[in-house]
Every structure is written in C-alpha cells, then in structure tokens.
C-alpha cells in the first residue's frame, strides 16, 4: 500500500484554465518517490500545462496538488531547492559560456554542491558526464541544438535534486546523444531520484518509465505500467489471404473456429485478425488452414504496443479508463 509519505507528487481533481478555456480538466495523479513516470499526450492534450503546474510555474485553477509535500506554486521557495527542471526549450543567455552558465546556476542554488569551494569540481564533473567538457569555454549561442539539450540536462541535474522534470529531453538529439541521455536518466533513477518525463518518442517511455499516463483532451485517458496498458489490448495475427479463398470465406470459417473477433483486410490480400488469446487463436487458425489445405504466408503475431494504445486514444476511440 502506498502511503502519502511515499508520494513525491499527489494531485486530486487538478484543473488548470486559461480564462474560460480549461486545459486540464480534473486529473488525479500519484507519483511515487524514486519512480520514473512518463506523461504522454496527444497535441493539445494539456500535458505541458500539467507539467508547468506540477513545476510551480502555473497556479492550479482547481483541485489539490502536493509536490514533495508542498504546494509548488504558493510554497515555491520550499519546493524549488529540491527540484530539477529541464525546460522544453533552452532559455539560456547566449553570450555566456557553457562553464559560466553552469557556474551561475550552481551559485544560485542552495545545494552544498554550489558552495564556492566545491563549485569548480561540480561544474567539471557535470560537464564531463554529459560530454560537454570540450565546449566549456564556448558561448552558448554557438552550441548545436543537441549540445544545448545536454546543457539543459546538466542544469536540471547538477544540484542532485530529489525530483526532476524532464520535458522532452531527447528532442533534437542524434541517436548516440539520445542513448547517452537515456543512460544518464537511468543512472539518476538508480540513485533514487523521482523523474517525471514527457516525450514524443513512445519507445523512450516504453524503455525508461515505470508507469505511464496518456492525456487526451485535458484528462488522463489511461494510466499504469506498460504491461497494464497493453495487456488488455488484442494481439494481432496477420497473414496473407490464401489463393482462391475469398475474405468472406475466411471470415465465415474463422467465426466458426475462433468465434466473434475483428478481421480487417490490409492492402490487396493482407488480413489482420485481432484476438485476445493469441496462442489458442493461432493453433485454431493453423488447424483450419491445415485441414483445408491452405497455406498461410507471411504470418506474424504482434503484441499490442504503447503506440497502439496511443493511436487509439488519439483517434478518440478510447474511453477514459484508469488501470489500477
């Protein structure tokens, strides 16, 4: 059982509005300490507004919110020293060098790592970790997009905060930089840091997150572990329609051997079958083909993915539901 003290973030019926427009329409969130939580969403779903409210940049228009035991907006001075925030866009003073930027950030923090006698070592170590050491004296304006994202990550993590918000941390990064960023995020999680991540890369959420929430139209459409999100989705069996057999014949036959299910024609002769029990359906399908002398070419079985869940939500087919 999760107790309140185990929770880094707790929101109940959280609402955020811009004038008459309610961008976040009553969400419940519980993010445990030490957990990596991915907040995904369709465009305009309210994900950025939610993040900014959790970070304390915006005041909630309704509901309750506790971040590390405090209201992040009204009690900002108590919360911020324990937070690290990686903004979606850089926000640097371009004429400062990389090392000046990190040094200033540390000087503004109350972390012991920001104390004058330790600062130089902390800056050097942080830049080494994200491979920015050779750009230390480069002005920020001259950095590439990927290097700026890495500098962003340095600033978010250099004070070793308890809770880190990462807003699309790998957008614009090349595959190698993305892998290195993932490694750093996993190291952070390994050290017990609570991480809230937003990303457009679903494989990033699949790989990194302990739990995932997908927002749609200001509400959380689904929430749970990856397994919880995909387990009750049908598995797909696809194969090529045997020669001489019509789709209608196959549909009738499968209705008899497998029972009611969804069969879709893809392209000229591709068939996709949604099933709940993939093993049983596959055995019966192959049995039917064998007994009737049909050959099923290009047969593949694919489990539902986060992408499928996301696509269903984006298409508006998903009813609001929250996995336990």
């Amino acid at each position, binding site marked *: 059982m999760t107790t309140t003290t185990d929770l880094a973030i707790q929101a109940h019926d959280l609402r955020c509005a811009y004038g008459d427009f309610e961008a976040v329409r009553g969400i419940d969130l519980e993010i445990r300490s030490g957990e990596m939580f991915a907040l995904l969403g369709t465009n305009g779903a309210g994900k950025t507004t939610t993040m900014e409210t959790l970070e304390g*940049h915006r005041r909630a228009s309704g509901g309750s919110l506790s971040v590390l035991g405090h209201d992040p907006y009204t009690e900002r001075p108590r919360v911020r020293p324990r937070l690290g925030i990686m903004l979606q866009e850089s926000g640097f003073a371009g*004429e400062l060098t990389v090392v000046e930027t990190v040094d200033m950030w540390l000087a*503004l923090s109350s972390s012991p790592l920001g104390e004058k006698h330790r600062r130089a070592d902390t800056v050097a170590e942080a830049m080494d970790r994200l491979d920015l050491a050779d750009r230390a004296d480069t002005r920020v304006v001259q950095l590439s997009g990927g290097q700026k994202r890495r500098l962003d990550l340095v600033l978010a993590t250099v004070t070793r905060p308890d809770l880190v918000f990462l807003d699309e941390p790998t957008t614009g990064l090349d595959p190698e930089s993305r892998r290195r960023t993932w490694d750093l995020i996993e190291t952070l999680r390994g050290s017990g840091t609570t991480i809230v991540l937003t990303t457009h890369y679903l494989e990033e959420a699949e790989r990194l997150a302990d739990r995932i929430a997908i927002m749609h139209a200001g509400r959380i459409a689904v929430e749970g572990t990856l397994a919880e999100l995909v387990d009750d989705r049908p598995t797909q069996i696809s194969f090529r329609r045997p020669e001489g057999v019509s789709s209608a014949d196959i549909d009738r036959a499968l209705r008899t051997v497998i029972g009611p299910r969804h069969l879709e024609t893809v392209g000229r002769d591709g068939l996709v079958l949604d099933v709940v029990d993939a093993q049983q359906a596959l055995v019966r399908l192959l049995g039917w083909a064998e007994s009737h002398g049909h050959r099923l070419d290009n047969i593949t079985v694919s489990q539902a993915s986060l992408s499928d869940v996301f696509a269903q939500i984006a298409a508006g087919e998903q009813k609001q539901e929250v996995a336990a």
Partner: protein
Amino acid sequence: MSTAQQTKVIARTEGKLIARNKTVLFSATLFPLALTALYLIQDAEGPLAAAGLTSIMVAIFSSMTVYMTVTLTAVSRRQDLYLKRLRSGESSDVAIFAGITLPTALLCVAQMIVVVVVLAIIGFEVPSEPWWIVTAALGSIISCLAMGLGTASVTPNASAAQMTTVPYFLFVIGSVFATPFADSQLMDLTPGGAIVTFARMAFDVPTPGSALTAAAGLVIWTVIGIELARRFFRWEPRS
C-alpha cells in the same frame, strides 16, 4: 539562499552580458562624452543654465540608459526564455527583477559620476545643495526602472520595444523642456518636471515646485510602473 545573494549572482551575470554587448558599451561611453561636450559648448552661464543642463543630464541618462535598456533587456530575456529559466530555479521574482535591472542602474550612476567629475575639474558651476541632484538622480533612476519593467509588461517582443518605449521617453525629455515655460507646480507631477524642480533647488534657483510635490511626482511614476508590471508582466512569451 537570500534574495540579496541571488540578486548579486544574477546582476553579476547581467553585467557580463552588458559588457559583451558592443551597442550598450558604445552608448554607455558615448552619452557621457556627448553630454560633457554639451556643457562645454553652450554659452549660457549661471545657476539657471546649470540647473537646466543638469536636468537634461539626469533625464537623458535615466530615460535612455535605464528606462530604454531595462525595457529592452526584460523583453529580450523573456523572448530568449532566460527569465523562465531563472524562474525554474530557486531565485525569487524580486531577485530576478533586481538582478537584471541593477547593472543598468549602476551604469547610469557611473555615467553621471563621470560627467560630474569632468565638470568639477573644468570648473563648472557648483550646486549649493548637491544632495537635491542626488535625490533627482536616484528618484529618476528608480522611476525609470519601474516604468521600464512596466513597459516590458506590455511589449510583446524586442522589435516592438523600439516603439513602446518612445512615448514615455519623449514624455520624460519633453517635460524637462516644458517645465520652465509652464511655470506651474503641477509640472512636478511629470517625471521631467520633478527633475527640474530638484535641480533648481540644488542650484538655489527659484521654482514654483517643491521637494514634496517633485518627490510625489517620481513616486507616482514608480507606482504606475510597478503596478503595470505586477498586473501584466509575463515570464515567458505569449504562445
């Protein structure tokens, strides 16, 4: 970490950014030189002329060096999301405002000191009560800081700042030139009129205004700037 410490760090960084901005550096050097030259080439002599030129100096330095620079700095830093960055850390709002404006105010004070020192060396008219000039300078700098932040609150981007700063700038300069002709205590309620009154008091020149109404004038413009900023200032550009 205290607000004062945060202000010091942000101000030190802002100072570096100003020092690396060639345009600001150029104007910071050029204005004192140009104004000193103005003192030297004018024919008028005596306390009245000295008070007039001192008023112009205070008005130009505070409206150009402080008001216009603060507006442009706040808008540019907001546009670059630098303000949002600072606000995502531990810094208080007061420390961020003070930190990004303090170097500009100090630059203005330095410019005024340079002009005063040069004038003292060449034997220009000495004010009998110099603290009124200090009052005028500080009051004008503070009101221009506040109005700069207020104007930044209603300025969408750096290009627009070149337009939105014009009315108040002209108002400050215009009221300095208009005050001697208006000959009314009501002019103390304009930013330029208040400066003229303090400058005249410094050189012991008769004035229809008073220290109280002149101070009230500068306070009013300070409050208007703060109120504009309090109501409309945004930390990031409108999306």
